[in-house]
């Protein structure tokens, strides 16, 4: 297995990148057309193009990862190449951190700069009918100025902290428990793998499977929360900046949990059906687990800044 002087594997030609580019283009081009058709109330082929592009992208990425896995099995990947993957995944996660920073930064700015400004002095008195800044923002500046004639209404209820005594009946609290537990289970999976324990009740497969189940439970609870917000709380994307920031932050987090769950599921399937991963060769799993810890940390930040301080 261990070669003394390994050469860095540079693959020969590959059709993957060009097809991935075409697929990515069709995906966003179709989506752009679809959104414009929706806004203009027109029929068109946007959604079809989007679906075709997305399916092609999924297919190309599946092939791509299969090929990388296969090359690894054939022993083409030197230790140095594996370090490239480690750097790659690490910096990718950093880019995701910065993406969320933009939205957390927006939340901070809106709460601490924009709203106080809208709610004081001549801005409030002359422009927005004596608007008072408050968080969660239930009465929008538009409502303060125009009453029933407003275009943007605030939500009827919000998702904020009901007080620690009531946390047992508060969905976000349970979601937090589920997600933090899952970070532990994925870590136990890693430990089990390092100890060469793949099967059995406390083996890699069991812990990883449990993590996937917890991920799915989190997503179900999240859908439940959204349905409740839309149907019973009058809280939607369109209810001023509270609804905007709430759904954008939790929504993008939810998308990332979906991605993370899918990644872990794929690793679980690889392990269970194909017997992949050994204690010294398990980067696919490790990368997915780092991603999982990352979405967990984002959730903790969400729980603090969106829910508890909300």
């Amino acid at each position, binding site marked *: 297995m261990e070669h003394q002087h390994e050469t860095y594997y540079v693959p020969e030609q590959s059709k993957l*990148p060009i097809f991935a580019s075409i697929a990515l283009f069709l995906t*966003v081009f179709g989506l752009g057309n679809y959104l414009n058709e929706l806004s203009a109330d027109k029929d068109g082929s946007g959604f079809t193009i989007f679906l075709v592009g997305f399916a092609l992208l999924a297919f190309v990425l599946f092939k791509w990862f299969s090929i990388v896995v296969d090359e690894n099995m054939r022993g083409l990947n030197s230790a140095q190449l594996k370090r490239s993957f480690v750097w790659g995944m690490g910096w990718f996660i950093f880019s995701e951190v910065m993406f969320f920073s933009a939205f957390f930064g927006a939340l901070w700015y809106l709460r601490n700069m924009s709203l106080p400004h809208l709610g004081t002095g001549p801005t409030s008195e002359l422009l927005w009918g004596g608007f008072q800044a408050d968080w969660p923002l239930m009465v929008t500046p538009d409502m303060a100025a125009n009453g029933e004639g407003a275009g943007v209404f605030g939500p009827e209820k919000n998702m904020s902290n009901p007080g620690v005594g009531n946390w047992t009946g508060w969905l976000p609290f349970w979601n937090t428990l589920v997600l933090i537990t899952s970070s532990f289970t994925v870590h136990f999976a890693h430990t089990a793998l390092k100890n060469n324990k793949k099967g059995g009740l406390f083996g890699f497969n069991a812990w990883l499977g449990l993590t996937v189940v917890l991920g799915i439970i989190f997503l179900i609870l999240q859908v439940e929360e959204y349905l409740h917000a839309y149907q019973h709380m009058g809280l939607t994307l369109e209810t001023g900046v509270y609804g905007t920031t709430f759904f954008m932050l939790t929504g993008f987090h939810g998308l990332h949990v979906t991605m993370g769950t899918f990644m872990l599921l794929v690793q679980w399937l690889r392990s269970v059906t194909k017997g992949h991963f050994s204690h010294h060769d398990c980067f696919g799993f490790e990368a997915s687990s780092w991603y999982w810890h990352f979405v967990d940390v984002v959730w903790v930040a969400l729980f603090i800044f969106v829910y508890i301080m909300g």
Partner: protein
Amino acid sequence: MAHGPAKGLSRWFYTTNHKDIGSMYLWFSFAMFFLGGIFALVIRAELFQPGLQIVEPGFFNQMTTMHGLVMVFGAVMPAFVGLANWMIPMMVGAPDMALPRMNNWSFWILPFAFAMLASTLFMEGGAPNFGWTFYAPLSTTYAPASVTFFIFAVHIMGASSIMGSINIIATILNMRAPGMTLMKMPLFVWTWLITAYLLIAVMPVLAGVVTMMLMDIHFGTSFFDAAGGGDPVLFQHVFWFFGHPEVYIMILPAFGVVSAIIPTFARKPLFGYSSMVYATASIAFLSFIVWAHHMFTVGMPLLGEVAFMYATMLIAVPTGVKVFNWVTTMWRGSMTFETPMLFSIAFVVLFTIGGFSGLMLAMAPADFQYHDTYFVVAHFHYVLVPGAIFSITAAVYYWLPKWTGHMYDETMGKVQFWTAFIGLNITFFPMHFSGLAGMPRRIPDYNPLWADWNMISSVGAFMFGAAQLLLLYNVVKTIRGGKKATAEVWEGSHGLEWTVASPAPYHTFTTPPEVK
């Protein structure tokens, strides 16, 4: 392992070779440079004299927007990525980029992204018309329908940049030849390492801000709408948090290029190597805490104005370190003035002028007078054209013999340099004056008070454009033939890339060299 280039078109579509991909980046960037240049010439033709002559005001706005977007994202950034692809593996003694297939994906996204962006010109309602900074609500409430495609184009070119940067960082950190310690790396590699870090930090923020726009436009959110408690100023903060590091993304690799060229033609080692590294890192750090100097007139609290003003002025310190180091490198050097050196010296002089006008703009109280005038246009064109564009041109002349195996036509190179140098100064220097006299940016018609300066600028712009045709001709001519280049190419050249043959073999350093 020793596979050579494939035959026909498949070589370019399916390649995993850093040199092929570098060439594609460079040609793509060159094409975009001409496209953005045509947009610029439409602008300058309209501004040749007061009144509306050639284009409608609405179309004029599309031209200023598309010129900026194409030049920033299509010409300058891909050119530097192309240079990185070609040179970094050779400079650090690596067999290729760390992740060769992803490298090709990073490139091939770009033609699609820019095809989509350019196609907005033919859409109903026209292309984006809100300036390259796309401030809300011009880019949300009042935007043409094509803004949706603009947003998605930005998304995928951002994905391309992030993947490209990850590749560059992995290559530099993981693929260096034995003995190539961090503080032995050529400065071009150092500046790119830091640039790649900046890209990974801020491209996701750009993705975030265009996503907020998309949601405001299509899904009724209120990020930038005060009626729902949002704030258009929020857009400016998020945008410039991306935007300011972005302008250093376009100049740090230029510092690297010039730091390679000046020592070669001064025949002296670079003065103050480690201070260059630290200065680059300081500039990168400072770039994150100065963004609001683009927004002094937006109504920030006084404390904000003062803090951002002083932080901005601090940048002059590491930048000054660099300029003095380049000058000191030339001091008592055995200098010759081949075309790359001419472009590099022009870079040092003219970029410094752009830096000085930047210092003027950094003063918040004075900026209230300059804001959104042609003085700002003069400032950022002085840092971008003789800064980014000249350094890219210098790099092309400097490394072209290594890429093609042929020497370029030196006389024609010098003619191009002087045409470009004179043309750019005729174009942009008068803008300082029209700006100080009060001429606002982004207007198709103007007070006859500024007519003389504008006429001069327009003449210079066409001269500068003509110079680029000379560059194209010279590059094509060099590829097709010319005097054979030696491996060292330049008498004073220094570094691993000059130890391999010219043209560089398809695969270099499949076994890493030993660096002492």
